């Protein structure tokens, strides 16, 4: 692959997680409060509005799983084991520095893990409804968002003003718009960047805590990529098969999936998961009552913990067309029942959309690297 030089900001995203460790420590020293979050259902606007720093907790490496398995069952999703492991070993500085951890009753593994976590960390669990339709669910979740506000105000001894929550909404919306604009660059054929590079920015952007600065960097990255592309720079061959990844959250250890795809003649153009479109597509309505608008927006995230999960189907169907996808690869994590069951629905949906589909199950080990490679290479060879 002939490469044009990537913008330097781009590499800045690659190290963001590590650099963020120091930033968070400095923020703590300055007296800022830190709130650890586990999931994209966490309404971080409320945290931001309180002047606190929301951070995503480490959950994507197998280095802490052995430790976690001393307490948790082996046959549990690696994401849950990994994050719990990071918490007990204090290897995740983000958890270590967290004054409060916000969790949601998403899947069974996670919600029970929060109970264990609360033995040694302050945890606030939000009761997430299991459906998005109907007033009852909406009412419940609005109530939960306002309880979170109360909790944070009480915990940090602050008053969240209307002005600050509205500002937080605008800043987060701005970030979402930029992230969307960024990954939508890959709608071009060929895409200007590889899926590995796209993921670096999507994942890394979570660990930049100065929103104004982050949004500026995102803007610069987008402009630079656009400009290079217009000037004829090509990083990906025209022949590369365009792949969309869906399924469980993918980062760190599971980047092996992206690698296997991109080493076998494919290029990942879109992520329909918690690193990508699932989180960035929906904005909070800036004209509505702030807490209601926040609650309504978050509840619509199409995760498999919802039943039915129509929003995932809707988003997937749209993305495969918009990104002119040649094939869809779903990654499920071992023992993630909700996604594993939903695979059958996604397979049917993709049949209807006439898009080739394959689903692979994996964990955070490297033991299946060769098998994944064969499977994904075969899938790419199969694409017309």
């Amino acid at each position, binding site marked *: 692959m002939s490469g044009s030089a990537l913008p330097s900001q781009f590499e800045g995203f690659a190290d963001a997680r590590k650099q963020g460790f120091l930033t968070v420590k400095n923020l703590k020293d300055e007296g800022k409060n830190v709130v650890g979050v586990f999931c994209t259902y966490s309404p971080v606007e409320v945290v931001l509005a309180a002047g606190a720093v929301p951070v995503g907790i480490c959950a994507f490496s197998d280095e802490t799983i052995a430790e976690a398995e001393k307490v948790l069952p082996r046959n549990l999703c690696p994401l849950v084991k990994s994050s719990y492991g990071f918490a007990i070993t204090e290897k995740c500085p983000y958890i270590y520095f967290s004054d409060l951890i916000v969790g949601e009753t998403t899947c069974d593994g996670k919600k029970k893990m929060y109970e264990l976590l609360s033995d040694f960390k302050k945890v606030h669990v939000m009761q997430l409804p299991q459906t998005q339709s109907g007033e009852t669910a909406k009412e419940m979740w609005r109530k939960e968002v306002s309880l979170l506000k109360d909790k944070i105000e009480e915990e940090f001894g602050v008053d969240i003003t209307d002005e600050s929550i509205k500002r937080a909404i605008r800043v987060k919306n701005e970030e979402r718009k930029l992230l969307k604009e960024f990954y939508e660059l890959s709608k071009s054929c060929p895409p200007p960047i590889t899926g590995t590079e796209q993921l670096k920015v999507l994942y890394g952007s979570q660990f930049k805590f100065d929103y104004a600065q982050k949004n500026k960097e995102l803007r610069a990255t987008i402009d630079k990529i656009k400009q290079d592309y217009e000037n004829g720079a090509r990083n990906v061959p025209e022949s590369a098969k365009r792949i969309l990844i869906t399924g469980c959250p993918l980062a760190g250890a599971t980047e092996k999936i992206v690698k296997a795809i991109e080493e076998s003649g494919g290029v990942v153009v879109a992520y329909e998961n918690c690193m990508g479109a699932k989180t960035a597509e929906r904005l909070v309505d800036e004209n509505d009552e702030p807490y209601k608008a926040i609650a309504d927006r978050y509840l619509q995230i199409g995760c498999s913990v919802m039943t039915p999960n129509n929003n995932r189907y809707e988003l997937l169907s749209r993305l495969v067309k918009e990104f002119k996808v040649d094939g869809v690869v779903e990654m499920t994590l071992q023992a993630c029942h909700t996604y594993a069951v939903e695979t059958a629905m996604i397979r049917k949906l993709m049949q209807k959309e006439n898009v080739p589909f394959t689903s692979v199950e994996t964990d955070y080990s490297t033991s299946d690297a060769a*098998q994944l490679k064969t499977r994904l290479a*075969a*899938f790419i060879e199969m694409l017309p």
Partner: protein
Amino acid sequence: MTKWFVGIDSGSALCKTALFDGKGVTDALAVKTGWNPGLSAAESLGCILKRNSLSRGDVCVSSTGYGREAIDFADCSFTEITCHAFGGMNLAPGIEGVIDIGGQDSKVIQIEGGRVTNFMMNDKCAAGTGRFLNMSCERLGLRLEDIDEFADPDEAIPVNNMCAVFAESEIIGLLAMQKDRSKIMTGVLQSIAQKIRQMTGKVGFTGTAPLLMTGGLSKSALLIRIIAQAISLDVITHELALFAGAVGACVCAGDKGRW
């Protein structure tokens, strides 16, 4: 001048090599893969070339199988899924799919309009693979080649455990209860067929054309019959079915214009 292809399918147990003249197989060879997949492949190539009075420059070498990365002298390389499909179509035109039970994994491939349209693979667990059958034969004191002669074609003692390790304990338990070995063997074959059924069910075959069984176990007519019953589809085999992957590697190389 004939365009010659040599396909090498380096499996976990056997290294299969086929010589192909652009239309069909003219020679084939299977040797033990051994500890060095690259070496057994090189020796096989040498042997095939020699006995057909060809030299390396006369042929395009195409590799597949789990050891394909080790065959660094190949001109091109394809995954075993694609190769089994194209090899299958060459050996038995008109099939709707391929069932391959290999040493490390088993797979089911769907073919439509001369292309692979879907596949399922079991590579996470030994149940339903050649390894599982090997282990069972060892426990029962049988040779793999003798399954058909030995297993009871009409009656089975079910081996229910879907995990190969627990299934082994189950077999030990059954033997301790002095159950009939020939019926346990049939139970083992049925459990392999069940694993295959899990995969064919997800692929969704129409049943309009038969499936081809490839790989070493395609020699067992009894296993084929038991699988066909379990999946309610027609299953056929071919005398060169063992070489389907190697043949497919040649076909793919030809399609890609590698020669």
